[in-house]
Structure formats: structure tokens, C-alpha cells
């Protein structure tokens, strides 16, 4: 079969976007392509709140899964003490009679056992369907509970996976106090970074968020809070008084920034992920505008640029005019990388296998890019849309090789997972050593990664690695393919998985 026969879409992002809006291309995920549910994404944000107890009103499995994935991982990587995630342990009798008694009992016990600042009640499929009136229950006991209480209706069926992020961010605004002159004066040189999730940054990794904090502080401002990666109730209460909310990207942090803008008129700085110098400067300058620190920002930016200039310019020179083929599993990241390749390195980006489902899920990022006159090329092959296969599965791998054909390996670089094996240089920006990727240091790091991959492009990819990912007799597989590994911003299999403690690289 020729590559033409395997291509489902080839054209500009704007065309794909329009086709999706008009229903001319299917935008639903296959049944073999599940993502986390709304409950999980909601819990990922809630896991970043200090001294907060989340009670999952449902059977034990919901609480157990997120607790293990998020809380144990935070303890292991981010220096957090072990934090509980509780369950009301809904059983068969509660399905029949309701779980009100269990919920009220649990809240009262939590106050006595943990004395938290915030108690979050997260509903599950079971309690959502049986119709426990959680809001009324909470209202009826709120006078007798000293912690702040927040109800999150995040039943797994009640929205696409990322709706949990937006829901929690919008609800967190309920915990915030309106700005006051005193607090505003105190925080006039402070920003919030909004869109953080899961918990504190990894202590031993040079993470992107740490780099953003360094940049904000470098220009003389302060970070008041990273919401909700590592924040307290006190920080949340004062958060609307900062000079500006800086969204981590147009996607995850946007809902919170927008809500705070509407409710408290807190300005928002929202750009694409700060990959590359152009996007970083845009991010910093917009923040500086609200901080009234434009001069300081410009001086700092010049200083930062100077610190990477020689190596960066040398690396950049080698990249101009080359093609960057970007895996589209993580939609926002692939769009941001496309922006960097074009605007910073003068390359020609093509996003490979950007699932049409992402056009609905990532509207704000796409709108931003198109407004910024960025309209990268998109190539989607059949494998991406096939039932039972996804992303780097064998079919898409073969389609990729076919697409590349006899292409000159010195003029194309592939941005994607090391678990793909195109016959061209490959850069895996998710690898733990390739961080930070944001900011000036990040831009240099990326440029160096690209050049390193060109320098060693004469070395064939490891047969061992290839056989690990694509065994000779691999058959039809399903959602548990490589999806998680490829699409998550999780370097080196850091999440707790079930089973034998083998990193879950291919299995999680």
C-alpha cells in the first residue's frame, strides 16, 4: 500500500480544525484509546493542595488508584510526606440506600483525624448516578466543620478527561478572597503560575516549572503561588491580588486564569508553552507588562540570552531550513514545539499523527497559534484512527517509515518518543536529561539535542531497543499500547504502577 493510501489527512492545521468543526473528520477517540477519566484529572489538580484531604465519595478503587499514582509518586520524587486520599467506601447497600450517612460521618472523622485546611469531596460514578445530593449534605453540615469544604462533581462519565482539570481550577476560585489594596500592594511584584498539577516539582530534576520560577525571579519579581502544583489555602486566598496570573500554557492553566480574570479582574498572561526563546520572551514580556517591570525584564532577557548566545547561535545555524517532524500525541506540546522550530530555528515543522480528537480538546491553543499566524502542516495516517492500535503502534510506525521513504537523513529530524524508530535523527524531549525545555536554557538544550541527534545519525538504532518495542510476532493490541508512555509528560516511567516494580515502561 502506498503512503497516499494510508494518509487520512494532509494539510494545514487550520484546515483540519475547520473540518473538525464542520464534522467532516471524525473527532471521537476509538474504544481502544481510553484516557484517564474526569475523576482522575480532577484529582491530579487536587493533589497539589497542601494540608487538604480529598475524600472520594465512592467505592475504594477510585481513591486507591489516584492515591497510589499521585501521592506515592510525590513522596518518591518530590519530597512530599505521605498524604492520605480517603474513600467513603461505598458498598452495595449504599447503592440502594444512598451514602449520606457515610459522607457526613467521613467528614466529621476527617476533621478529628487530620485537622485539614480544606476538605474536598470528589464524587465518583457510583455516587453521581445514585444521586447523593452532595451539595445539600455539605451545606447542611458546613457550620459544624471548621475546614473549608469544596465539592467537585467529577464522575468519570461526566466529561472528557481534561474537563476534570478545568472543573477543579474553576472551583478553586471559590476558595479565594477578592483582592484588597493592602494585599495587592504587598503582591504588586508577584505572579501566580497557574496550571500546575499533581504536587511539588521533582527535587532532583531541573524541571520546566523550576525554570519559569527562576526566570520570574531573575527579572526581580516573585512567584506567589504555583496553582495547584504546590500551594496552600493561604496562598489561594491571596492569589487574586497578584499583579498577573501566568498560565503555564493555553490549555491547562487557561481555565483558572480566565475564571480569576472574570471574578476578580486578575490579569492573565496566557501564551503558548514557553518552548524556545521567542515564546519565552513573549511569556516574560507579557508578565512584565502587568508587573510594570518591562525594563527589568528586557535587561534580564538580554543577560539570559547572552549566557547561551554563542552555543545557541552555533547550534541554530545548523538547523535553518531543515524539516522537523513532530509526534502529535501530546497536542499542546507538539503545537508549541512547532512554534519553536519555525520561529526560533527557521525550520519547517510538520506534526505527525495529531489525533483529530485533539482539535476539540485543545481549542484555545489552536486559536492562539492561528491568531499568531502559525499554521503548521499536519499529517494523519490510518494507524492513528484504527481501532486497537494507537500512536507508535506498528501500523503508524510503518506508515511513518513509508512517509519518510528515502529521505535525506541530514535534512529531517523527528521529535518524538525514543520508542519510535524512524530512519532519521530523533530527539526525545521527554527524556529526563533533556530538561529544562522552557526558557533560554531550554532553547539551548533543545538545539543541542537536535544537533547531537544529527551528529550521531550514522549510528543505526539499537536492534535490542527495536525488538523490545516491536517484537517480531506482535499482533493486534489495544489501548494499553505505548499510549501512556508516549503522551504523558512523565520522564523515565516515574509513576507508580501495579505489579512488579519494573517501571511499567511499556505497561502502564
Amino acid at each position, binding site marked *: 500500500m502506498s503512503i497516499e493510501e494510508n494518509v487520512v489527512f494532509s494539510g494545514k492545521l487550520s484546515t483540519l480544525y475547520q473540518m473538525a468543526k464542520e464534522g467532516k473528520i471524525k473527532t471521537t*477517540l476509538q*474504544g*481502544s484509546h*481510553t484516557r484517564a*477519566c*474526569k*475523576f*482522575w484529572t480532577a484529582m491530579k489538580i487536587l493533589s497539589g493542595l497542601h494540608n487538604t484531604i480529598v*475524600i472520594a465519595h465512592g*467505592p475504594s*478503587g*477510585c*481513591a*486507591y488508584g489516584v*492515591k497510589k499514582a499521585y501521592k*506515592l509518586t510525590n*513522596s*518518591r520524587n518530590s519530597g512530599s510526606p*505521605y498524604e*492520605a486520599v*480517603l*474513600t*467513603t*467506601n461505598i458498598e*452495595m447497600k449504599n*447503592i440502594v440506600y444512598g451514602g449520606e450517612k457515610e459522607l*457526613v*460521618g*467521613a*467528614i*466529621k*472523622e*476527617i476533621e*478529628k*483525624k487530620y485537622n485539614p485546611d480544606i476538605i474536598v469531596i470528589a464524587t*465518583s*460514578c*457510583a455516587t453521581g*448516578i445514585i444521586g447523593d445530593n452532595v451539595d445539600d449534605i455539605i451545606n447542611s453540615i458546613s457550620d459544624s466543620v471548621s475546614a473549608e469544604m469544596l465539592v467537585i462533581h467529577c*464522575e*468519570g*462519565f461526566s*466529561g472528557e*478527561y481534561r474537563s476534570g482539570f478545568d472543573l477543579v481550577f474553576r472551583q478553586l476560585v471559590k476558595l479565594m478572597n477578592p483582592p484588597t489594596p493592602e494585599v495587592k500592594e504587598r503582591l504588586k511584584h508577584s505572579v501566580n503560575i497557574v496550571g500546575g498539577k499533581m504536587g511539588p516539582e521533582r527535587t532532583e530534576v531541573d524541571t520546566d516549572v523550576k525554570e519559569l520560577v527562576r526566570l520570574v525571579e531573575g527579572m526581580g519579581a516573585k512567584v506567589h503561588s504555583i496553582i495547584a502544583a504546590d500551594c496552600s489555602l493561604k496562598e489561594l486566598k491571596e492569589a487574586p491580588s497578584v499583579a498577573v496570573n501566568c498560565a503555564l500554557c493555553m490549555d491547562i492553566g487557561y481555565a483558572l486564569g480566565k475564571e480569576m480574570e472574570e471574578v476578580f479582574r486578575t490579569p492573565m498572561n496566557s501564551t503558548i508553552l514557553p518552548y524556545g526563546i521567542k515564546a519565552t520572551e513573549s511569556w516574560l514580556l507579557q508578565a512584565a507588562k502587568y508587573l510594570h517591570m518591562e525594563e527589568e525584564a528586557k535587561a534580564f532577557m538580554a543577560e539570559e540570552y547572552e549566557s547561551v548566545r554563542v552555543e545557541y547561535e552555533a547550534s541554530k545555524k545548523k538547523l535553518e531550513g531543515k524539516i522537523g517532524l513532530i509526534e502529535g500525541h501530546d497536542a499542546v506540546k507538539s503545537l508549541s514545539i512547532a512554534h519553536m522550530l519555525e520561529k526560533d530555528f527557521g525550520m519547517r515543522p510538520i506534526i505527525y499523527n495529531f489525533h483529530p480528537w485533539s482539535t476539540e480538546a485543545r481549542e484555545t491553543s489552536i486559536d492562539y497559534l492561528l491568531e499568531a499566524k502559525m499554521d503548521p502542516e499536519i499529517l494523519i495516517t490510518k494507524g492513528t484512527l484504527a481501532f*486497537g492500535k494507537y500512536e507508535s503502534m506498528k501500523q503508524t510506525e510503518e506508515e511513518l517509515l513509508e512517509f519518510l521513504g528515502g529521505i535525506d537523513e541530514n535534512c529531517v529530524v523527528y521529535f518524538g518518543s525514543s520508542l519510535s524508530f524512524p530512519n532519521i535523527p530523533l530527539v526525545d524531549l521527554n527524556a529526563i536529561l533533556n530538561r529544562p525545555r522552557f526558557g533560554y536554557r531550554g532553547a539551548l538544550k533543545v538545539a543541542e539535542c537536535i544537533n547531537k541527534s544529527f551528529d550521531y545519525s550514522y549510528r543505526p538504532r539499537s536492534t535490542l531497543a527495536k525488538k523490545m518495542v516491536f517484537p517480531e510476532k506482535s*499482533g*493486534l*493490541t*489495544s*489501548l*494499553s*499500547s505505548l499510549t501512556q508512555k508516549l503522551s504523558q509528560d512523565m520522564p523515565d516511567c516515574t509513576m507508580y*504502577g*501495579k*505489579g*512488579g*516494580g*519494573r517501571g*511499567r515502561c511499556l*505497561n502502564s
Partner: protein
Amino acid sequence: MLEQLNWKHNNFSKDPLLSCALEGVTNVLAGIKDVCIVIHSPQGCAATVNSSYDQHEVDFTNRKLACTRLFERDIILGATQKLEDMIKQADATYQSKIIFVVGTCAADIIGEDIEAVCRMLQPDMKARLIPIQAGGFRGNSYEGIGMGLAALIPIIKPSHMKINNSVNLISVQANCNPTWWADLEWVKETLEKLDVYIQTVFTHETEISQIEEAGVAGANILLSHEGSFAFSKNLEELHKIPLLLSDLPFPVGFINTARWLKRLGEHFHKEQEVEELIHREEKRITDILRKRALMMIPRYRNCRIALSADSTIGISIVRMLFEELEMIPELLIFKHCPESARRILEEELSSMKLSPKVVWEADGYQIKKALESVTVDMIIGSSWEKYIGEELGIKVIVDAFEPSNREVYVNESYFGYDGMLHLLQVFANDWERAFRSKHISFEKYTAKCGE
């Protein structure tokens, strides 16, 4: 007499250490080769099924899973058509012999009649369809294992003919050893040495045909205390297969391994072979340990310990800790412990004249409170206890059980003779790590050099 620990304010709010019934059910199904699992649920529950595949280390090329991805509209209007379409698609794509159609909380509560759907579709399907309602609210993950095993009963063919020197091994995965399949391997190898044929493993890398033929086995052996007793009783009643060894701890440590093997030898009339095996293996392991004796014996003697585990490993390891390593078990924490297993523990403790504090069915809060209530030098547990113990300042924490921080590339049994070595190796490494200097004071020494 056991001192059972209980705390106020822990009736409604649990910090769970076990997942829900769905995970248990799919854990049984994921151990069967070449089956497809169609899950009628919102998409998040598919992660639970994946977790079960992880439990069996089924790699991504061998997973056949499809999810109906239920949303609000489906909850209100029902999603029977969606389920039918998904089953048809899975049947056409995956070409499995059996498709298990699993309903989770959402489908279970709204009353999706998955049995009727399977019945109606069956004539046109290549695969055999087996429906299972597995709403998470039906129990914890161990109870789910029982539900999953029960769903296999209709597959087992009745057989009047029995192969006397053959066994079924049951509930092999309900074991907190992170590489529990190594325990299964040890049992299989040991049985083979005694010329006992393994009929069916419930379930790990099990063929459907093996499940169909499970009725010919001469005996059943449980490899876990969790969630499988009812299934083995069912097999006893329906297929007249007696259950062996159910009143003993599992073979962890020299003494318990010898007890377990001797009983096995008695049943299969292999007493002599068993005696020789025990003698040979004890000598081999002792010779290895002798080289570590100078470090090992003083380290563990009268070391006060807290143990936190499931009942399968937890009950079985106590004798090794007390009688072989000369430790003092001050606190025993079980995240799950059925009545049948409690009786075994009580007998064990009574015979050793031990009366540690005990927590049954513990959650995270109880682990912390229990550890606060005792003075111990060492915890033997999992990552939960590692972090809770660190917060409490407990010096040595052995991270031996699931979920564990350890990376294990080569399978490590905890059962049997090599199993004892594997456990002692984990103990030794975590012990050494606890007493090693964490940082070299480069600044201090560099400054001195420069002076």
C-alpha cells in the same frame, strides 16, 4: 491472646490500601491467554484493567481491551447499542477465543443488561461471550478476585475421571510479592520434582483449554489466603476436588517451607523425596548464608519489628522472622485478612508464644497510628510504610512488598528456599542503606585542603 488495635473516628473515612472489585475481577481475567476484555464503563475504569494486565506483566503486544467510554448521555439513555457495537468490533479485530464483557459501577448501577446483550449477540460472534458485572462497590480487590474466579466456574467441564497426581493452583496473584509469579514458578518446579502434574493455574498465563479441563485435577492448592477460599470450596462441591494445605502458612522461611513440603509429600506419597529435597536445599541456603553470618546474625537478633503485609505473606513470614532470624515481632498489620487466615495466624502465634499487637484490614491512617503506638527498630512493609515510617523517624524500613520502590528485573520468589534468600537480600540492602552516610561533606574537606 492477640492485642487487636482499633481507633476512633475510622468507621466512615478510609485511606484505602486495596482497590475495588473491578480490579480483582480483571486481575483474574488478565491471567488468561488470548482473551479480550470489553469493559462497559467510563474510560477511567480501563486504567484499572490495564493495572491488572500490569499485575501479570502482560506486555503491550498481548493486551486486548476495548472500552465503551460511557458519558452522561449513556448514563441517562442507556448504552446497549454502544456495547453491542463495541463487542462486534472487538470480536472482528482481536479474534479472541473468549470475550469477557465486564460491567463496572456505572453500567452495573444503571442496570445495563450485559447478560442479555451477550446472549443475543452470541450466535453471530466468533468468540464466546462471558458477561460479568463487576461494579467496584461489590467489594474490595480481593473479593473481586473471588468474583472473577466464580465467573470461570461455568467454563470448567465436569469430569468423573481424576488424575490423582495432578493439582490446580488457585489465586496465584493475590500475593504482595512484587514478582509473585516467581512464587508460582517455585511451586510449579517443586511439584514437578515430586512428579505432580499441574493441571490448571487460576490464573497466570493460563490457556482457556486448561480452565475447561480443571475438573480432572486430583487436588486443589491455594497459593493465597485472599479471596479464593469460596472458589476452592465450590470446586470441591461441584467437581469433587479436595483442597490441600489450606490450614498451613505458605512456604516462607525454612520451617514453614519444610512443613508445607512435608504435607505435600504425605498427600502424594513422596515423603522420602521431600525429606531429601528439604535436606539438600537447607544445606545449600545455609552454606550461602554462612558467608553473611557475621553481619546477619547480630543485625537481626532481638531487633523489634513491625510487619505490614497481606495475609498470604504476612502470616507465613512471622515464624521465619521470630524463630530463624531471632527478631521480635511487636506489631503485625494486615491490609486484608479473612477469617480462615486469622485462625492460622492465631495458631502460629500461640505455638511461638507470641502476642504482638495486630491490626486487621488496615488503612493508611491505622498504619500510622499503629506505628506510633509501638517502639520498633525496623518496619518490613511496602512503599506506604516506607514513607509513613520515615515521617515517624523509624530507622530501618524494608520496602519488600507491593507497591514497592524497588526495581526488580530478575524475578524473585519469596516462597521456598531461594525465596528466603531474596527476602534476606532485600532486608540486607535496606538495612545497609539506612546506616550509610547519605552525603559526603565535600565543602568541609575541600576547605581543609585549601588551607
